[in-house]
């Protein structure tokens, strides 16, 4: 006899295999970088040519041709601890550098003031070396350098010749 093979249709119940939902995951990639304490000057030099420095009347220093002269440098510092120093080097007679006789001068002194971020740094050329450092902090813009208090050591007659001096403005990112 035939047997009926029951075809078991296996009803495969589509069993919904409750596979667990993918747990949300979060990957994190950290990115970091740094900016070094830095100062830079985009305009780092200038020249003040004062011309004739002696009075026609008595040959002594005409301070008015120096006092008030100014030039602008530009730069920036990005750290709150940035400092600035100024060094004024005297105008020295390079034509006649030897010590002059009594009553004559071949050196002109002055005070230089640099203003950056509304902070003044100063130095007098009377004493060698830079002035005290001042904190300028974070700034970007002009550095105005102004001359004042011009004088000669003996208030004497200025020896004829060419005179040269310079103002050095130094920005330091950190102390």
């Amino acid at each position, binding site marked *: 006899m035939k047997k009926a093979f029951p075809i078991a249709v296996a009803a495969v119940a589509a069993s919904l295999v409750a596979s667990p939902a993918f747990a949300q995951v979060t990957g994190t990639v950290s990115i970091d970088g*740094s900016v070094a304490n830095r100062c830079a*000057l985009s305009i780092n030099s*200038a020249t003040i040519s004062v011309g004739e420095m002696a009075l026609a009347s008595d*040959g002594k220093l005409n301070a008015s041709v120096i006092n008030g002269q100014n*030039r602008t440098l530009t730069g920036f510092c990005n750290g709150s601890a940035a400092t600035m120093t100024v060094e004024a080097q005297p105008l020295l007679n390079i034509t*006649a550098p030897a010590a002059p006789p009594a009553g004559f001068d071949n050196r002109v002194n002055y005070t230089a003031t640099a203003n950056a971020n509304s902070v003044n740094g100063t130095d007098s050329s009377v004493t060698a070396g830079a002035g005290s450092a001042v904190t300028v902090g974070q700034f970007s813009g002009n550095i105005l350098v102004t001359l004042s208090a011009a004088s000669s050591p003996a208030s004497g*007659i200025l020896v*004829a010749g060419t005179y040269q001096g310079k103002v050095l403005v130094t920005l330091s990112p950190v102390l």
Partner: protein
Amino acid sequence: MKKILFAALAASSALIAVPAAAQTVTGTVNVTGTVGNRCSVVLPAGASSSTFSGTIALGTLDDADGTLRDNLIGSTTAAPADGLHVTTRVVCNTAAPVVTISATAMQVAGGTLTGATGYSDTINYIAQVEVDKVGATSEFRRYNTATSAAPAGSTATGALTAPISPAAGDNVDVSVFALASEGANTNVLAAGNYLGVVTVTVSPT
């Protein structure tokens, strides 16, 4: 059921930024000036000038006999004519200013006795300028109108051996001495106003 945990490994790569070494920067403002070679006359009021002037007024030039005054003839470098000087203050800013002197004889304007024997209308003299120098010394420049040159032993032009004294006060002194009537001191001087001119220049070089 199994829970498969997917662990996401988050690998973070840390970028360690090595900060650049902090650098100082320096800006330079050059300052230049000049002092030109210069000599100036300092006037009493403090103003300056390129010239000075004065008069040595000798007054009556003749003695009672009409000849040139003996004391003018006998005047010397140390005791110039009538003790008169014209002085001024000059400032120079060079190491060896050049001082030059020249002079013209004293002559009567429109003289009518020119060449007449026994008469003179021209008086020669030696003009001198004394310039004070640094170091409390001085130098002379002299000129004899009779020879149109410096007298023997003197120079009419040349650089000083030291700068002009910068001290306050007059440092240039002009005088005349050793006057002599042209021809002979025994000549009678023609009447009239006599005028001679001494020119002194001080140059920075």
